[in-house]
C-alpha cells in the first residue's frame, strides 16, 4: 500500500531546543489547521520521523543553546533527507551565517536539502514557506492519486519499460507493449501510462530499467523511451507524448501523459502496420475493416479529432 497523503492539511514536525519557540510555532501552525508535533533534539526528531509521516520539518540549527558551535539542525536535515526525501525542510534560526545558509541550500543530487531558510524574527513568513512546501508536495501526489485510482480507460500501469523482471533480461516484447499502449491511447481519448508500477498498483520503481541502460538514470530512460516511439510510431508522435519522472516514497516512477492524436496512428511491426485502440482498460488491435469504421467515427470531418471525454 502506498500512502497518498490523508485529507488533513498536512503534517509538520517542529524541532527546536527552546520550549517557547516550539510552542509559539506549534500554536501558529495548529491554528491554521495543520497536524503538528515537536521534538527538542535530534534523537527525538528521528524517532518521530521513523514512526510517523510528515510533509514538512521545521528545524532550528543550534539544538543546544549551551553550545555555541552546535549545528545539530544541519546534521538532522541530512538525516531526514536520507530517511524520507519527500519531506520538505525549512531551516529556522536566530544565528544564521553565510556558511550555514550555503550548506542548507547547496544542491545535493540535483536538489537542495532545505526548501527555505528563515530567521526567527521572520516568523510571519513561516506560514508562507509552509504553504509553498505543501504545494510542492501536492503536485507530486498527482501520481500518487493516480496509483490509488487503479487502471482504467485513461490509466495503465507497467512494471518496467524494457527490463523483464521475471526473466531478468532486456525484453523487446515489453518495449513493444509500451508502444502498443501509447498507440492505443493516441488513437482513443489519451491517458496516462505509469511505468514502474505493477498491475495491482505496487510501486516498483525504475531501478531495474535504469541498470539496464548505458546511462543509468532518468535521462537514459527518456532516451530509451524516445527510441521506442521512433521505432514503432515515428518520432514526430512525441509531440503528443509527455514523459515526466516523479518520486513516490523512495521510488521513482515515469508518468507518460498521452494526448489524443488528431489523426490515426499506426504501429510499425516488421514490414506491416497495425492499428490499436484503447477500449476500457485494455488495448485492442483492430483489423483493417474495423479500423476504417473506427477512423470514420472517431475522427469526424476527415481527420479532425473531436475531443470528447478526455480531460474531464
Amino acid at each position, binding site marked *: 500500500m502506498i500512502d497518498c497523503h490523508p485529507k488533513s492539511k498536512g503534517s509538520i514536525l517542529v524541532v527546536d531546543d527552546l*520550549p517557547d519557540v*516550539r*510552542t*509559539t*510555532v*506549534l*500554536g*501558529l501552525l*495548529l*491554528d491554521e489547521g495543520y497536524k*503538528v*508535533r*515537536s521534538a527538542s533534539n535530534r534523537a527525538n526528531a528521528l524517532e518521530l520521523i521513523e*514512526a*510517523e509521516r510528515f510533509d514538512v520539518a521545521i528545524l532550528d540549527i543550534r539544538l543546544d543553546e549551551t553550545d555555541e558551535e552546535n549545528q545539530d539542525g544541519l546534521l538532522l536535515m541530512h538525516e531526514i533527507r536520507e530517511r524520507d526525501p519527500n519531506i520538505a525542510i525549512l531551516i529556522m534560526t536566530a544565528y544564521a551565517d553565510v556558511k550555514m545558509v550555503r550548506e542548507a541550500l547547496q544542491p545535493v543530487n540535483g536538489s537542495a536539502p532545505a526548501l527555505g531558510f528563515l530567521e526567527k524574527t521572520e516568523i510571519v513568513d513561516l506560514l508562507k514557506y509552509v504553504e509553498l512546501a505543501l504545494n510542492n508536495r501536492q503536485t507530486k501526489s498527482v501520481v500518487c492519486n493516480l496509483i490509488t485510482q487503479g487502471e482504467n480507460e485513461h490509466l495503465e500501469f507497467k512494471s518496467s519499460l524494457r527490463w523483464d523482471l521475471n526473466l531478468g533480461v532486456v525484453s523487446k516484447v515489453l518495449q513493444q507493449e509500451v508502444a502498443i499502449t501509447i498507440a492505443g491511447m493516441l488513437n482513443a481519448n489519451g491517458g496516462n501510462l505509469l511505468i514502474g508500477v505493477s498491475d495491482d498498483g505496487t510501486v516498483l520503481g525504475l531501478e531495474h530499467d535504469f541498470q539496464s541502460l548505458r546511462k543509468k538514470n532518468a535521462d537514459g530512460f527518456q532516451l530509451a523511451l524516445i527510441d521506442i516511439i521512433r521505432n514503432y510510431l515515428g518520432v514526430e508522435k512525441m509531440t503528443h507524448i509527455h514523459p515526466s519522472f516523479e518520486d513516490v516514497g523512495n521510488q521513482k516512477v515515469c508518468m507518460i501523459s498521452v494526448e489524443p492524436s488528431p489523426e490515426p496512428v499506426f504501429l510499425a511491426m516488421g514490414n506491416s502496420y497495425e492499428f490499436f485502440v484503447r477500449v476500457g482498460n485494455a488495448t485492442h488491435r483492430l483489423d483493417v475493416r474495423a479500423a476504417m469504421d473506427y477512423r470514420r467515427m472517431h475522427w469526424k470531418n476527415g481527420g479532425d479529432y473531436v475531443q470528447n471525454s478526455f480531460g474531464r
Partner: protein
Amino acid sequence: MNNQRPKILVVDDLVDWRTTLGGLLVDVGYQVAVAESSAAALDLLKTEHFDLVLLDVRLDETDEESTEGLTLAGEIKDRWPSTKIIIITGYGTSEILNKAMETDAEGRRLAANYIEKTKTGELVQVVRDALKKE
C-alpha cells in the same frame, strides 16, 4: 501508536490564547485541535472524538457578560458524556466557576476542573490529572 495519544480540543475566541495553550499541549505530546467559536467546536466534535475539551468561559470578548462557554460545556456533557471538560477563564468569576464545578444530583459535574489564564504553568498538570481521573 498515534491514536493512543489523547486528543484535546482548545476553544477560545482569542487567537493568542488558542495558539499558546494549543502549542503547549502539542509540545508535551497531545494531539490538539483548536476552535474559535462554539459552532466551530461542535463541528469538530461531530467528526472526531476528543478526550478533553479546554474551553474559555466567555467565548465572546465583546460581551462582558458572555457565558457562552458554559452553554457549550453543557451541550458537550449531554452529547459526548465521556469527553472531559476544563474551563479556562481570564477573570476568575467565582459565580460562573461555581456553576461549572457544582455537582448535580448524581454526583456529576460539568467541568473536571478549571484553570486561570494567568497560570498556564499549571496547565499541563491540570490536563494530566483530568485525563487520569475517571
